[in-house]
C-alpha cells in the first residue's frame, strides 16, 4: 500500500495510495461524472495527456472486459479514484482495473477525496496536476509541474500512422482518425459498413480515391485550433461531395471549416447526465460527453449551418448541420461506448443519408 501524492498547479496536495503503474505522471486533471463505463473512458483517446478523476467513488467493480476497449493503446496520464475495487477473473472479466493500468503503464491513485477535488476543479477549471511518490521537497515538485509544457500535438500522437481497413459488405465509409473511439467502428460494423480508417493527414483526393458513400471525421483529443489548415481544407472539400458525419473533435473541425469559432469551455463536460435537445424533433436525450472546447454561440453563420442540438444545462451547441450539403456533426459521442443508447440512431441517420445520396 504505497503512498502517493496528487499535486495540482494551484499548490494543493492530496495524499493517496498507489494503484496501477508506479510511474510519475503529469497531465491536465479533468473529472468525469459517469457512473458506469470507466474502462471505455480510460481507453478513450480524447483523454490523451489528461488525468481522469471519477466522481463515482468505487471504480473497478465490473473489471476489464475484452469487448469494451475504446483504443488498444490508451494514452491518458492517470486515474484518480476514491476507491478501487477488485474482481475475480472469469469468463467476462479477464483483468482487474489495477492489473490493466499496470499493463498499460498508467498510474492510478486511490483514497483521494474526489468530491473535494471535483468541487475544486469546478472552480479552477482544468488545471495541470501530477501523481508523484511522496517527497520531502514539495516545492521542487511544484516547480517541475509548473515547468511542464503539455504538447498541443495530441492528434498527431494518437492518430493512426497508416490506413487500415475494417471490412464489411455494405456501405463504403472512410473514417478520418483524429484519435478514434472504437465505438464508432462498432456502430459502423453493426450496420455492416466497409470501413477504411485513414490518418488525420489524409487529403480530400485520397478520400475520393476510395469512392466512399460517406465520411466520418472522428473524435480526438485537444484543441481544434491547433490542428493543421490542411485538415480544415480537406473537410471543406469533402463536405460538398460526400455525406459527412463529424463527431467530437471532428465536430469542432467541421464547425471551424464552416466559419465558426471554437473556444475553451469554462466548465468541461465529462459525463452522461446532461439533457440534450434535438432541435428538429424537440426531443430530449442523453449522451456521453467529453469536451473541453465548444463552438462559440453567435459565430454560427445561419446561412451555412443549422444548430441541431443544444446542451440544455449551459446552452452549449451540441450539433450542427450544413444547409446545402448532407453534412452534420455532433459534439457528444453518438456511439454510446459508454453512454445511453438513444443517440446511436444518429448512425442510422448517417446510414440512411448515404443510401439516399447513393441513388
Amino acid at each position: 500500500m504505497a503512498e502517493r501524492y496528487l499535486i495540482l498547479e494551484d499548490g494543493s496536495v492530496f495524499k493517496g495510495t498507489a494503484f496501477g503503474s508506479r510511474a510519475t505522471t503529469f497531465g491536465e486533471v479533468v473529472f468525469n461524472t459517469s457512473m458506469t463505463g470507466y474502462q471505455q473512458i480510460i481507453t478513450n483517446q480524447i483523454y490523451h495527456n489528461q488525468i481522469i478523476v471519477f466522481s463515482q467513488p468505487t471504480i473497478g467493480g465490473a473489471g476489464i472486459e475484452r469487448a469494451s476497449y475504446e483504443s488498444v493503446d490508451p494514452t491518458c496520464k492517470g486515474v484518480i479514484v476514491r476507491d478501487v475495487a477488485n474482481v475475480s477473473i472469469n469468463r467476462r472479466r479477464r483483468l482487474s482495473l489495477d492489473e490493466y493500468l499496470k499493463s498499460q503503464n498508467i498510474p492510478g491513485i486511490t483514497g483521494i477525496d474526489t468530491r473535494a477535488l471535483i468541487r475544486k476543479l469546478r472552480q479552477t477549471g482544468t488545471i495541470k496536476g501530477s501523481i508523484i511518490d511522496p517527497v520531502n521537497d514539495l516545492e521542487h515538485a511544484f516547480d517541475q509541474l509548473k515547468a511542464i509544457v503539455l504538447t498541443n500535438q495530441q492528434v498527431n500522437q494518437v492518430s493512426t500512422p497508416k490506413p487500415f481497413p475494417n471490412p464489411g459488405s455494405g456501405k463504403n465509409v472512410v473514417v478520418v482518425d483524429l484519435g478514434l473511439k472504437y465505438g464508432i467502428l462498432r456502430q459502423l460494423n453493426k450496420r455492416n459498413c466497409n470501413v477504411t480508417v485513414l490518418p488525420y493527414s489524409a487529403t480530400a483526393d485520397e478520400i475520393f480515391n476510395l469512392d466512399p458513400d460517406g465520411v466520418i471525421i472522428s473524435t480526438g483529443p485537444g484543441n481544434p485550433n491547433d490542428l493543421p489548415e490542411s485538415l480544415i481544407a480537406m473537410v471543406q472539400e469533402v463536405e460538398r461531395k460526400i455525406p459527412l458525419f463529424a463527431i467530437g473533435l471532428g465536430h469542432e473541425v467541421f464547425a471551424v471549416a464552416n466559419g465558426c469559432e471554437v473556444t475553451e469551455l469554462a466548465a468541461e463536460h465529462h459525463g452522461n447526465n446532461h439533457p440534450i435537445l434535438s432541435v428538429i424533433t424537440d426531443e430530449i436525450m442523453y449522451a456521453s460527453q467529453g469536451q473541453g472546447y465548444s463552438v462559440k454561440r453567435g459565430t454560427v453563420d445561419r446561412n451555412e449551418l443549422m444548430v441541431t442540438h443544444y446542451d440544455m444545462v449551459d446552452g452549449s451547441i451540441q450539433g450542427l448541420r450544413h444547409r446545402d450539403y448532407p453534412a452534420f456533426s455532433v459534439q457528444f459521442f453518438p456511439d454510446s461506448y459508454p453512454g445511453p443508447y438513444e443517440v446511436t440512431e444518429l448512425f442510422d441517420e448517417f446510414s440512411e443519408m448515404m443510401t439516399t445520396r447513393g441513388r
Partner: protein
Amino acid sequence: MAARKRVKNILIIGAGPNQIGLDTEIDSATLQTIKELHNAGHTIHYVSNNANSIIADLKEYVTFIVSNLNVNAIINILKEHQIDTILPTLGSGIALELVDQLEDAGILDELNIKTIGVTTTTIHNLQNPELMNRVLSHIKQPTIPTTVVDSNEAAIRFVKKVGYPVIIKPIASLTKTNRSRCENEHQMIENLESSFKVSTTHQVAVEKSIVGFKEIEMVVIRDAEGTKLLINGAENFNPVGVHAGDSIIFSPTQTLTDAEFQALRQATFRIAEIFRIKGVCHVQFALDPAGNNYFVTRINPFFDRSTAFAARATGYPVAYVVSSILLGKNLRDIEIPGLKHHESLALIEPTLDHVAVRFPTWSFASFKNAEQELNTRVKSTGAVMAFGRSMEEALQKAIRSVDSTTSAEQAALDESRLTEAQLINVLIHPRAGEIFYLLEAIRRGYTVDELAELTKVDAFYFYKLQHLVSIEQNVRKNPFDVDALKQAKYFGLGDSQLAHLWHSHSDRVRDFRINTAKCLPTYKGIEPTAGEFPFITNIYYSTFEDEDELTIDDKPKVLVLGTANNQVGTNSAAEYATVQEIKALQALNYQVVLLNNNPNAISLSFGMADKVYLEPLTIENCLNIIEREQPEHIIAQGKWEIVTRLIERGVTIHQLPLSRTTRSENVESDFMLIACKYQNQMAIYGGVKVEGHQLNSSLNLNSKIKNKLNPIVTAELKKQDRNGIYTVVFKQNNEHLTVTGVVPLAIQDTPYLSCVLNRNLIVDLVNISLNNFKIDEVQTQFNQLDEPLLYNHVYPYHQFGLQLPQQPPFSLANGARVETETE
C-alpha cells in the same frame, strides 16, 4: 396554454395499514403530492384505513376519508364526494387493483372519472400477466419464458428452447405443492410425473429458472411529452431468489458493465413509453451474470420502496417533480430547488459520488417460530439506510444503524460458535442477518470465489467483505494505534466496533480518536450532481475525508432524534410522531435538525426538516452532531437505549413522555381516558371505549360517572412524577369505577388518539417538554366524531406463515387499522 385550469376533485387511494412489505415509503410521497396539488387549487380526498396515516393530520390540505379499501366502499366515496379524478399511484398495488375493478365494472365511465399518472389501459395491462407479457413482447422486452404443458414431450420441447434449469408447478392442484427446480431432463421427468398426478387438469406450468441472476431496480420519470429521465439504478446484493425487500441493496450499481447498465436503462425507457407513464415508474430486472440477457420481472408504475430509496439515495426530489408532472408541467419546465444558476435542472440525470445502501431489518427476535430463511416472500419489518464514500463504509454504517433490538438479536448469534455445517447451510440458504455469516465465513478462510459460487452473490462484494475482515484483523493486532484507527474509520468502522475489538470502552476510543489521532468526521452533502454544480442541499452524511461541507448558522435550533428503522410495537406511529415534532418545533420558530436513517421515513421528506443528517443513530454520531450543531434543545421520543446512554454522558435531552412500550393487552378495562399533567395541574382530553383488543371512539358516560372522573384522574396523575400525557384505564361496574392502569401515552396509540380527540398530542408533548404548555386550553370532550372510529392492531403473523394467536401482544403489532362501525 391557457392559464385557467379546471379545478379537479381528486381522490387519492391509499394502500392501507402498514405491514410487512409496506412501510411508510409511500406516505412521504403522498404528503408532498397532496401539498403540491392543493397549492395548485385542486380539491383532494384521501381514502385509507391506516390508523397511523400522517395524512389524517393534514386537514388544511385534504379530506381524510376512513374506509376499507374495497370496490363498493370506493364507489360510494366517488359518488358522495363527486370525484372526477383518481390518482392511483400512491396506494401501491392495492390502488391499481381497485381502479382496475372500477374500470371493469364500468363505474369510471358511468361517473365520467379520469385517472392521472397512469391510464386505466396501462393498469389493466399490468394487472394481467398475460397482457403485460404481450405488451412487453411487442416492444421486444423479454419476460421469463413460461408455458403450460400436458405431456412430458411438450415440456421437453419447451426446455429445448429456454434451457435448464426450469421450475415446474402443477396447475389447479388440490394439495399444497411447491415449485420444484429441475436442473436436467432426468429431474424434470421425475418431477413432472408427480406434478401431473396432483393437477386436477393434468397440466403443469414450466418456467425458466432465473435463480442466481442479478436483481436490478431502475427508477424512471416520464412526462406527458415523453421525455424520460433515469433517476436511479440500484443493485441487490442477493441474487434473484431472495425478495428485494429482504436484500441489501446498493446504489449506484456496483458490478454492472456500462453495456449492461445501458441496456436496462433503455429497456426501462421503452417500458415507461409503451405504458404511457406520467410520473414515476420502477422496473425490476433479472440480469444473467454470465451473458448479456435479462428479463423484466416487475413493473410498478407507482411510488414504492424503490422510488423512495431512489429519492433518498440521489437527493433528487422525486415526489416534487412527479407532482409537477401531474399538474401538467413537462420536465423541461420544472425547476428544482437547490440549483440556482441553471435552467431545466429537473432534467439533469442524477449521478452519485457516494454509495448509498438500504439494509433490511427483521423482527425475528420477537417471532422465534417464524421461518428465517429468505426466499421470494418478504419478511423484513423495516430498513435502515447509510451513506459512505466506499461500499465498505456504507455497509459498516448500515450494520451499525440497525437498532438495538435487532442488534440484540444479532448478539444472540455468536458466529464463532457456528458449526461448519450450519455456516454452509446459511451460505446456500440465505437467512436474516446473512451478512454476519458471510463475514464469519471469510474469517474462517473461505475464499472469495468459493463464496461467490455458493451464494451466487457477485465476487466483488466478497472482496469488499474480505477487506473489512482484514481491517478488523489489523485493528485487533494494533490496539490504540493511530494508523489502524484512521484506516478503520476511513472504511466505516464505528468507535463502538473499535472498542469491541480493542476490549475497551467506546468513550476511551472516542477520546483517543479525537485527542490523540485527531481523526474527526467530515460531512458531505447528498445531492444529485456529484459535485459538478453548486447545489444547495440541507442533507448530509459523515465520512472521514479532507473537505467538510457543513455550514452551521447560529439560529436557535433543536436536534430531533429520529427513530430509525420501523419496528414492531412502535411501528409507523413513531414516524408519525417524528413528523409532528418537527412541525411543532418549527411552529415555535426553531430550526429543526433531524437525525434519521429510515429510507422510508416521512420525516426525511424533501422540505420537512431544516437540516438532515442521514446517519446511523449511534452514540458516536449523536455526540459528533451535537458538538457541531450546538442545538438549544435535543428531543427524543421516550426512553431508549441511545437516549439513556447519551444522558449518561451528560447530554441534556428532552424525552417526550411517550412510551415506546405499548399498553398491556391483559389489563381489564372498559374505557380509558387521556389526560395530561403539567406543573401540578391536570386536565382530561377525553376518552375511548376499550372493547377487548379494539378501541372505539364512541364513549358514552352518564353525567354521574363523568363527575367522578376528574377527582380520580387528578389523584392518579398526582402520583406520577413527570409532566406528560397519560392513559388512565378504567374498569366500570355499573357506577363503580376502578382504575386498572396509568401509563404514559404509548407512541403506538398516538396517531389514533390524536385523531379521535381532535387534538395534536405530539404538539402538546413538545410544549410540555419545552415548558411552553398552556394546560388551560385543554378541553374535555367526548365523542367528537360524527361517526365512531374503531382501532385495531395489524400483525405480521400470517406473512411469517404463523397462526394469529388468541391474544397477540400489542408490542408485536406492525401497523394499525382504523374503520367506521358500519363497515
